[in-house]
């Protein structure tokens, strides 16, 4: 009996010890899990219980002055397949191929790009090869219509993911104003060129996030923990650009560049009273929806020539030289000088563009005839310091700080470095460089009673909680109101009696100046290539000041035969649009 009791006690003790050790092991494991490895397991549990989703902020839209969207956000689709369920034979997917690559299949068999189709077949074969996979991308960037057509095929092994994209509805007319959005080296979406580049910080919003407790299948649990930090969308830009003026100018410009066989062309229009840019058209252009296609061909196509490209402006500068002389009371429109042949400055001969000489001529005639010798004489009367001072006051040689990416400032050497020849050539626009915008704003100053306004293209930045207004800013008074009025009359006479008279509008008086500027390459002026510029306004209304520039037109080297007809064509259409009645009755 004693032995039995001993054995029982022994067994009980063993069981007790085993159970105790088991408990200790469990406690030890729990201690390890809950205390020592607490952070690891907590994180793992959180990852299972909580779903965190980024709520992407929307990039701001860009609107024309009438609130029409020029840039907005939309979606494209990436097409994926389920390789484990997709058919193996290529013949079974021919219908899908015909929809996805419609542009190729629409061509006749002989014109199809066989290599392209073969490559796509290879992509397909590679995608369906691994039957263990449930997901493989097949084609990216499919549009809505194509997606609908594919969905109508009712293929169970096909699916789509939506990809947000930046869309430009009017794909060509505004490209150089808007720029485009691409990915930077970190894969982050960033604006390049134009407004997308300049206002990238304002257009980009701040992403939000949503953290919520989820069930095993990923559905949110009601009354579970929930933390929603809403995204802050980017600000939208309301532009000063007038849609009608922009499209009218772009259409006319495109026709003229093709007609006159120019390398390129621009049309720039400003409201002289406010500095609002109403039009900024450039041709050839690019489609910002597919900027990559253009990048590989010619990356310089993205450059906005109105602000980023400098050139020798040529004779249009004579108007500035004349303005300075009149403002300093050195000459009047009736002052005369004698042009009886080439004049020597610093050992160089200065002659007229047509090699003709007109004897005694007035200041107005200097502008009418675009007389280089006369302009050099006027510049000489003003002096190098005076000419330099007025040119810089008109906005040359410094940035006008327009709100677009890539503005250049042009180049005028300091007058202390000038020789007589530098003063002479600068007086008629050679040996100096400027952007078309600088030339436009200088003329805008003349039209605006002598006051230079800051050019700008964004009227408002609209955020969800506030709006920032860009109000017109006066940079400085350059010439007196009296000088401005005198110049207005002289420039009107320069057009009606000058080299542009054969193409001038029959309905409206025009104040302006042509500029047929030679192009310097490798230290020499090209013989048969010029930049043709005409800049001016309707003096009775002064609603807009417009610059037209054609680069290397082949049909004629003279601005009066290329840039002037284009300017008149656009001006008449815009006057019609603005309801400005003709002021010229013949």
């Amino acid at each position, binding site marked *: 009996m004693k032995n039995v009791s001993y054995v029982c006690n022994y067994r009980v003790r063993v069981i007790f010890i085993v159970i105790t050790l088991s408990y200790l092991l469990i406690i030890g494991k729990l201690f390890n899990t809950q205390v020592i490895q607490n952070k690891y397991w907590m994180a793992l549990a959180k990852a299972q219980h909580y779903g965190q989703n980024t709520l992407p902020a929307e990039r701001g839209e860009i609107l024309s002055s009438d609130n029409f969207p020029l840039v*907005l956000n939309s979606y494209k689709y990436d097409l994926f397949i389920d390789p484990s369920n997709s058919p193996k034979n290529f013949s079974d997917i021919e219908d899908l191929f015909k929809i996805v690559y419609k542009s190729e299949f629409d061509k006749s068999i002989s014109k199809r790009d066989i290599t392209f189709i073969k490559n796509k077949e290879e992509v397909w074969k590679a995608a369906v090869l691994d039957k263990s996979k449930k997901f493989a991308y097949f084609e990216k960037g499919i549009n809505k219509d194509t997606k609908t057509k594919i969905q109508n095929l009712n293929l169970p092994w096909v699916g789509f993911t939506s990809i947000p994209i930046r869309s430009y509805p*009017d794909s060509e007319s505004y490209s150089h104003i808007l720029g485009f959005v691409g990915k930077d080296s970190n894969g982050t979406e960033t604006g390049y060129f134009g407004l997308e580049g300049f206002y990238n910080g304002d257009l980009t919003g701040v992403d939000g996030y949503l953290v919520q407790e989820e069930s095993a299948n990923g559905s949110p649990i009601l009354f579970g923990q929930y933390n929603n930090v809403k995204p802050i969308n980017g600000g939208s830009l309301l532009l000063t650009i007038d849609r009608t003026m922009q499209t009218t100018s772009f259409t006319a410009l495109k026709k003229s560049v093709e007609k006159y066989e120019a390398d390129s062309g621009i049309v720039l229009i400003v409201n002289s009273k406010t500095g609002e840019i109403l039009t900024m058209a450039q041709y050839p252009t690019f489609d910002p929806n597919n900027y990559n296609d253009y990048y590989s061909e010619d990356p310089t196509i993205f450059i906005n020539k109105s602000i980023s490209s400098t050139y020798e402006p040529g004779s249009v500068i004579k108007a500035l030289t004349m303005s300075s002389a009149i403002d300093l009371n050195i000459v009047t429109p009736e002052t005369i000088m004698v042009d009886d042949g080439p004049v020597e400055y610093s050992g160089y001969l200065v002659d007229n563009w047509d090699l003709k000489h007109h004897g005694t001529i007035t200041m107005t005639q200097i502008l009418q005839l675009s007389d280089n010798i006369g302009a050099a004489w006027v510049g000489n009367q003003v002096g190098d310091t005076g000419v330099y001072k007025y040119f810089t006051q008109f906005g040359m040689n410094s940035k006008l700080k327009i709100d677009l990416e890539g503005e250049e400032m042009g180049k005028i050497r300091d007058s202390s470095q000038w020789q007589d020849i530098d003063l002479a050539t600068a007086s008629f626009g050679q040996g100096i460089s400027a952007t078309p915008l600088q030339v436009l704003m200088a003329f805008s100053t003349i039209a605006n009673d002598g006051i230079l306004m800051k050019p700008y293209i964004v009227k408002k930045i609209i955020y969800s909680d506030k709006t920032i207004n860009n109000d017109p800013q006066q940079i400085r008074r350059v010439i007196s109101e009296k000088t401005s009025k005198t110049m207005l009359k002289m420039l009107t006479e320069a057009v009606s009696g000058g080299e542009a008279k054969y193409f001038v509008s029959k309905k409206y008086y025009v104040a302006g100046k042509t500029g047929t500027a030679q192009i310097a390459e490798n230290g020499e002026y090209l013989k048969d290539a010029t930049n043709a510029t005409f800049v001016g306004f309707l003096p009775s209304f002064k609603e807009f000041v417009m610059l037209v520039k054609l680069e290397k037109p082949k049909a004629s080297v003279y601005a009066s035969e290329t840039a002037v007809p284009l300017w008149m064509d656009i001006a008449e259409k815009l006057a019609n649009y603005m309801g400005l009645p003709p002021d010229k009755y013949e």
Partner: protein
Amino acid sequence: MKNKILFLLAIIPGLAMVVLQAFVANTMVIDGKKISEIEEKSSKIEIENKNLELDIAKLGTISYISKKAEDFGMQPAKISYVTQDNKGLASRQ
């Protein structure tokens, strides 16, 4: 008998609580799924809206409208002006 009644009184609320808990949990899961589906639907509609906005914008561009007008054989309006007391008066034709 008394003990049985006491036992039942103790067990029934417990069982009821378990059933209620199961019901509430089930309802919450179903509603959670519904919310998830609604969110997905809302996101799809939002995407569709964005794409429709783009379509509207494309159809509203001046270049598109003028091309359409041309296709329909429309002519640009001509405005002729007559003068009265040296002022231009417009008449649309």
